[in-house]
């Protein structure tokens, strides 16, 4: 990936917090600007050319997203405000009526708050139960343990494709196949995987797949929910407003439009959608997972040479390394590194159930395609210091 494409990389900062959000290449920024400078109108409501052209372009991006994740039909692609919004739509718009009291949802203790909290709420209001799949010794999910956790009441399995702390890649193909044999639907949080795996929702046969634009070099405030056509037809919109109804009358009856329109009430994040289109184009051309894996291996091998560093997820396949420096609280390490102009994240990374696994406070290094070996060397040099705590103060 050409570092010159990213204005943020000109800053005096080594950025290793890519699981939180990624930098944007110039073409994404330009596309957003182009909307505001040259195309700043609304869509779908007007007859003039500019609006018509923009509507066409937005629908083209829906098709581009469809192709990007290999969906069957572009109607299965819903624009949302982000991964969190997408997951909330599935839980409250679909699961709320699909799940009956006593039904069970299976998840794990390494999921993000955006996946777990909506289900906790549903557990309260709909008397469903949230159960956990046992993790193996590396805190990863294996099919055997999924099988063990399934009961006759299990109706939904909800997992991240790649988790944002352990960084493990879940064996989705086999989990989904097994789940479907038992009439269990599978909801996948793709926030961390969308940059790194070639997602094929048709081949996976996944029921719902959610992700954010900003973690794949796109703008903030735009995300995608993919759902199978027949499931989306059953899903209810969480918000109503302009653009979702075909007709309504003063007595209060209204007829919703078809999917995806019925889920996209109000004026959409048009510049965000356009920016997402450019991000997909850039990602597909430039992603180099082989390079990234090499870089991660290099970082791991160098970090393992430092005796005061403990690594917690050595065997995970994602571009994430979680670690601590002996006797230094994660936040102190992060503040020390910040003084060296190195950005990492510390804490529990919004996955608070990790407390149960003894992983509540860690430093997280998350790599992206534009990171370099030289940047890793700077990190290693900084971590090779016995006075990290003192120098953090």
């Amino acid at each position, binding site marked *: 990936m050409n570092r010159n494409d990213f204005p943020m990389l000109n800053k005096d900062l080594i950025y290793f917090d890519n699981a939180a959000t990624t930098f944007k290449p110039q073409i994404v920024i330009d596309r957003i600007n182009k909307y505001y400078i040259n195309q700043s109108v609304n869509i779908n409501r007007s007859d003039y050319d500019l609006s018509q052209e923009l509507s066409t372009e937005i629908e083209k991006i829906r098709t581009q997203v469809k192709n990007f994740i290999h969906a069957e039909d572009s109607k299965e692609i819903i624009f949302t405000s982000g991964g969190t919004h997408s997951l909330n739509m599935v839980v409250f718009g679909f699961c709320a009526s699909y799940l009956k009291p006593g039904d069970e949802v299976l998840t794990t203790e390494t999921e993000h708050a955006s996946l777990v909290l909506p289900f906790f709420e549903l557990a309260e209001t709909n008397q469903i139960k949230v159960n956990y799949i046992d993790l193996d010794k590396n805190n990863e999910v294996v099919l055997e343990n999924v099988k063990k956790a399934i009961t006759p009441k299990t109706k939904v399995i909800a997992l991240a494709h790649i988790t944002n702390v352990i960084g493990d890649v879940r064996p989705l193909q086999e989990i989904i196949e097994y789940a479907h044999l038992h009439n269990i639907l599978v909801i996948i949080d793709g926030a961390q995987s969308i940059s790194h795996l070639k997602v094929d929702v048709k081949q996976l046969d996944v029921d719902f797949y959610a992700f954010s634009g900003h973690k794949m070099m796109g703008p903030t405030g735009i995300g995608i929910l993919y759902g199978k056509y027949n499931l989306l037809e059953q899903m209810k919109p969480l918000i109503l407003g302009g653009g979702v109804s075909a007709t309504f009358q003063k007595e209060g009856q209204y007829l919703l439009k078809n999917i995806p329109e019925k889920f996209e009430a109000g004026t959409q994040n048009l510049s965000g959608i356009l920016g997402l289109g450019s991000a997909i184009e850039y990602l597909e051309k430039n992603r180099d997972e082989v390079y990234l894996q090499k870089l991660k291996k290099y970082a791991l091998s160098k970090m393992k040479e430092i005796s005061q560093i403990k690594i917690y997820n050595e065997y995970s396949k994602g571009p994430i390394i979680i670690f601590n420096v002996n006797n230094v609280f*994660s*936040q102190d390490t992060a*503040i020390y590194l910040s003084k060296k102009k190195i950005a990492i994240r510390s804490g529990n990374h919004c996955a608070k159930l990790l407390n149960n696994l003894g992983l509540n*406070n860690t430093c997280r290094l998350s790599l992206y395609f534009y990171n370099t070996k030289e940047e890793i060397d700077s990190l290693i040099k900084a971590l090779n210091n016995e006075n990290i705590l003192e120098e953090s103060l």
Partner: protein
Amino acid sequence: MNSNLKREIIIENNSHPFHKETKGEEYIKINTRNESCIDNINLFLKIENNLIVDLYFDGEACAISTSVTSIMIKTLIGKTLDEALVISEEFEKMINEQEYNKNILGELNVYDEIYKQPNRKNCAILPFKGLKQIIKKSD
């Protein structure tokens, strides 16, 4: 006080914090977690006749939060609730670069340069936020 000495006091209170021990039912308890994503400190307080007769803490937090809690506890045992609140207010003023009364802060003055690190300010104030909560709860 020079910076090295300040740093030494902070490190010492981080690695060997004062009154770090979990206490039971006989203490009033609060947790600071709702104020911060990471720091997770429990305070345990015992009051008699408006006097702080005992104060302990446990939990996990960064070096600044931990050491502030340690020094705060040393400073406050034996003080009245009103005195404690005044100290808390003066400490917050110091952290926020406002005029403050240096004389009543004692060892807490080692944090008088924290304002130079904005990402540390919240960590420093957190234990005192907890203190205010626990005093409220004792009402």
